């Protein structure tokens, strides 16, 4: 969360800052103005913004114009971006989508920690261990699984159109089948050893059985959910919590992770490391372009390979001077965006140059 403080000076010698969390939409402009490392040289332009109550814990585009935002107050809001006059408005709001059950004894609110969209469905998870299924046009939740988990659910993603994956703070990866009415996960996977909390999860775009998770100890785990209940490989990565993990949507031999330790790593398992794929992007979200390398590497995904010497993996830290935590990242085509606790947003438009 990057609030925009308003500075007030007071006579009593203190400084009061007015908290003002906002959702902002920026335009990063065209290619053409790039520096040596592919950093965009011009300034991103602020197109519009809107106040948001509470910290922004997660957000996702529902479609070209709508954004779903998860708040630390437990509220989930759908914002509409009007492109004709560049404004944002709150379209739909589910207050207390996440909250602690017994209001009498409850101690503070429960944050909504993760949101994932598959138009028109929206799934949210939170600190209350609840899973909500919403539809953008319906006022009430389509389905709610109370106490789905006895610990905090940190992230959620779609496995298939009717199945979701969640990770929690006792190191478990769970699959939920939304078609079934029972409130139990259909499968539970756990980490070996210590039950280190898992903070993020992402599924391989093409190979649906390959799942990556990131933990509180900075470890990257890769799972094959067709077999076993334990991860296939554990890769020692960051020195602190891994906040987000993302497979590249159109080139999934590349994986990106960011962490509280201030680093952002690019994991590259493409077999011919020397030949970088050239990118034809500019597609919309629904189009997928494949790299010049073979599409599915081989039958066994490079990610599931246990032999580190066989398939070389190249890992690069993309941040030269790391300071504060990198909280979030996203990638599309050759473009990488990430935000840090230093109240800065970075845009890299030539990721594979």
């Amino acid at each position, binding site marked *: 969360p990057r609030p925009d403080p308003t*500075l007030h000076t007071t006579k009593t010698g*203190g400084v009061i800052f007015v908290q003002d969390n906002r959702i902002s939409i920026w335009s990063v402009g065209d290619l053409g103005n790039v520096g040596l490392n592919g950093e965009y040289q011009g300034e991103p332009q602020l197109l519009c913004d809107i106040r948001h109550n509470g910290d922004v814990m997660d957000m996702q585009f529902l479609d070209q114009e709508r954004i779903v935002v998860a708040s630390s107050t437990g509220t989930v809001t759908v914002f509409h971006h009007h492109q004709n006059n560049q404004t944002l408005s709150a379209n739909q709001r589910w207050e207390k989508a996440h909250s602690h059950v017994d209001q009498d004894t*409850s101690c503070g609110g429960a944050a909504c920690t993760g949101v994932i969209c598959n138009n028109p469905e929206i799934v949210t998870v939170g600190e209350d*261990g609840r899973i909500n299924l919403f539809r953008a046009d319906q006022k009430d939740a389509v389905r709610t699984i109370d106490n789905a988990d*006895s610990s905090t659910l940190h992230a959620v993603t779609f496995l298939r159109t009717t199945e979701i994956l969640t990770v929690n703070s006792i190191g478990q990866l769970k699959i939920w089948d939304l078609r079934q009415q029972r409130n139990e996960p259909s499968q539970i996977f756990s980490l070996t050893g210590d039950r280190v909390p898992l903070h993020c999860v992402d599924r391989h775009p093409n190979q649906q059985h390959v799942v990556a998770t990131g933990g509180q100890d900075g470890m990257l785990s890769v799972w094959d959910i067709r077999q076993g209940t334990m991860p296939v490989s554990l890769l020692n990565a960051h020195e602190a919590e891994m906040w987000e993990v993302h497979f590249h949507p159109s080139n999934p031999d590349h994986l990106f992770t960011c962490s509280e330790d201030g680093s952002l790593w690019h994991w590259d398992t493409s077999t011919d490391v020397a030949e970088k794929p050239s990118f034809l992007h500019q597609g919309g979200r629904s189009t997928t372009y494949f790299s010049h390398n073979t599409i599915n590497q081989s039958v066994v995904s490079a990610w599931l390979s246990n032999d580190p010497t066989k398939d070389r993996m190249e890992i690069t830290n993309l941040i030269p001077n790391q300071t504060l935590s990198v909280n979030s990242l996203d990638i599309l085509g050759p473009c990488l965006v990430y935000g840090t606790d230093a109240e800065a947003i970075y845009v890299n438009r030539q990721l594979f140059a």
Partner: protein
Amino acid sequence: MCFFLIFLILPSVSARDPALHSQYSTQVSILSAMELIWNLCEILFVEAAAAGPLLLRLLDWVRLHVCDVDNMVREVLSSENPSKHELFWNVVDVFVLQGRMDEARHLLAKEASANPTSVNMYKTLDDLMKKMPVPSLGNTQTLTEMELKWQHWHEECQRYLQDGTFASNSHMESICKILLGDEDAILEKKELLATWYQFLVTRLLYSHPTVKPMELRFYAQSSMDLFLGGESSPEPLDTILMAAFEFEMHQVIKECSIALSNWWFVAHLTDLLDHCKLLQSHNLYFGSNMREFLLLEYASGLFSHHSLWQLGVDYFDHCPEYGRVYLELHIERIPLNTEQKALKVLRICEQRQMHEQVRSICKIMAMKALRNNRLGSALSWSIRAKDAAFATLISDRFLKDYCERGCFSDLDLIDNLGPSMLLSDRLTFLGKYREFHRLYGEKRFSEAAKLLLMLMTAHIAPCSFWMTLLTDALPLLEQKEVIFSAEQTYELMRCLEDLTAGKSDKQKFQDDDVETMKVEMLRLALARNLARVIVKEGTLEGS
């Protein structure tokens, strides 16, 4: 220091909200004042510019910060015919007062071409301005050389003035007087000077260009007196600048502290001066030096902000004496409205080996989770803090729930404890007890029986739970097939006797019928099992 960004905010804001605009305007002026003071301190204290370069630096300083006349200058320069503009001479004067000779000459040339008759006059003035000696930055000339040259030049100007060369044009005559450092002539242009420190620098430029740092105070004082002329009293900014010209660093810091309403400026300025080893290390009353005191104050202020507290941590890290203590106190008081924030705070504590704080924060989070009935979260926090006592508390809660409801809540947690089970004995018991139930459910009775017995004999189970365990043994005893061996049965009997013997008579009296009946049933079942097993074991086939 990125003050300039503030100037970008103003135009966009003012369109929307006049109140906000005036608020931002005030802050812009405060920031401008800060920048003014900071730059002056850099020139006088940090760089410690010597006579010669000192004047050049002061000229730059004035040009950078005194912008009252910029609009006027822009207006005249961008007009079609600058020399016909009514403010033309004002702008020329401004250039001369600020020592911007080239620009002044450029404008005069325009005027010269418009007035061919006075070409000679212009040429002379232009010549004088071109030849004016200025201190050099490099070592191309010594101070004495410069002074000599300057003296000659000064006399030349004097001659031209006295000859009446400029008598026909009052503007040019006054410029010449300024070049000669005539105080009255300079003071006439008070509006263009805007401030006494601009006046000071102009004076120095045209009368004492080789001024030494230590001489500044006299000129500064007299400049302020002459400029203000008793009409207005000095403002806080003036006092601060005067203290700087007098090289009274502590006075500067003190005055800034009084005038400004937050510690940001003073803390950073003091830190800079301290790093340049310019502040005498006289210890303050409570032991730490002034730099640390101010940094501690500033950082403490940051901690009241919901996101800038992370910067406060870095400041405390750089305060060798009290930084750690302050950090320990402040970090526990950060409001933890989300778990993610708590995790960030914990990471900071762990990096600095602040184990007490880690324990305390985890305990707070675990208590919150427990109150919200999030037992898994509570356990997760206990594991992070390696807090065995709390893990025991959570396990007791689970067990209590089980006793009340007859079934386990949150099976996904208990079934998957893994190595964290070993954190506390009670937790281990919980895990094992659940395992017993699972084994029973899977009809692996002999394994279940063994486990149950082990829980009691190895004293993993708390005494309060023994009754429940023994009651759980009942169905196993009542099975068609004999499960418990003779030895195991003896063990169970011993446990039962230990349990009942432990109760005092009073307790036995208070036991209701259900309790006594349970004990009776157990004794009966155990006896029956013993009988069966003795027979079975005595038989030759064994089985």
